[in-house]
């Protein structure tokens, strides 16, 4: 119901939504540990794919965006009450871990699974 209410209300964000291709979504992005300056201690993997989220959040936060109720309310507040309250932001929703093999300063070798290192999907919140 909150979604229906919002869609009936004209507001500045309606004009700012822009074309659908600019909507909040996941972008693949790869970086090497060499570029991050960590290749002197990380043995594997050589490449890291953190990905990122980018794009505008729509006025109506549809189900697929997994937005929490708070984001829907904040959208309403932005449109109906106070425009200094920002619209929700496009941010990662789900992450997956990455396994890293590295050599520690004392020469020991460490295998470690780091949580939340790769963005897998995006949300507006």
């Amino acid at each position, binding site marked *: 119901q909150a979604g229906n209410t919002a869609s009936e209300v004209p507001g500045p964000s309606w004009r700012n939504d822009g074309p659908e291709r600019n909507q909040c979504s996941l972008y693949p992005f790869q970086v090497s540990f060499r570029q*991050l*300056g*960590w290749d*002197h*201690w990380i*043995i*594997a*993997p050589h*490449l*890291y*794919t953190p990905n990122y989220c980018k794009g505008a959040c729509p006025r109506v936060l549809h189900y697929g965006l997994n937005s929490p109720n708070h984001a829907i309310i904040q959208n309403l507040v932005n449109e109906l009450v106070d425009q200094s309250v920002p619209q929700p932001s496009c941010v990662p929703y789900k992450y*997956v*871990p*990455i*396994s*890293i*093999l*590295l*050599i*520690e*300063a*004392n*020469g*020991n*070798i*460490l*295998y*470690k*699974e*780091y*949580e939340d290192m*790769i963005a897998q999907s995006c949300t507006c919140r």
Partner: protein
Amino acid sequence: KVGQPSTALLEEAPTLPLIQKLLEEAPGEQQRKPRVLGHPLQYMLDLYQRSADARGHPRENRTIGATMVRLIRPLTNVAKQLRGPWHIQTLDFPLRPNQVAYQLVRATVVYRHQIHLAHFYLSCHLEPWVQKSLTNHFPSSGRGSPKPFLLSNAWTEMDVTQHVQQRHWNHKGLRVLRLHFMCQQQKGSEVLDLWWHGTSSLDTAFLLLYFNDTHKSVQKAKPLTRGLEKFMERDSSLLLRKAR
């Protein structure tokens, strides 16, 4: 800030848990990758390939049973002894203080059970250090020791989980796991002393500690369960009224 060393950027945000961890574990920018070659490195590369794909994604069917594995090499200043046909090394593996968020799953030691040097074959085994182990008949080879598991023609793996839990400190006050690496000449009775001094203890054994990271589950469970319990205790009917 392009071109600035990444550790300098990390140091600007030292309070973030991941950053703290990286700063703790990463060697300095000037320090190049420590030289680790041979079997220890190969062992960990094999373990990595079994547990993760080329892009670093942990494999669904991985059998490692832990989220962190640390390979520890023995300290270099080990005592070397010669007793008849037996060559004995005392290996001290440095152990860090227990980290609250990590639970030790198991510990194993991988060692050479066969060494071929200068036409001599040496048969070796490891025994956990105990106060009286250097007395009487020597060595006992297996009595009261964990059962080793043959990895290849030359390398064996042995479970030492119970021994890692024990507390032992070396003369420098460092907590260590102390093991005896014992080798016996298989051919002739001639005492072969020279090889011992030319063989580094780093090439003969290494310790593997398997940990599980309990931090995430603890962090997630606490606020949910405690918060909900408190709320429910206070007034269970409130929840129903609000929903209505």
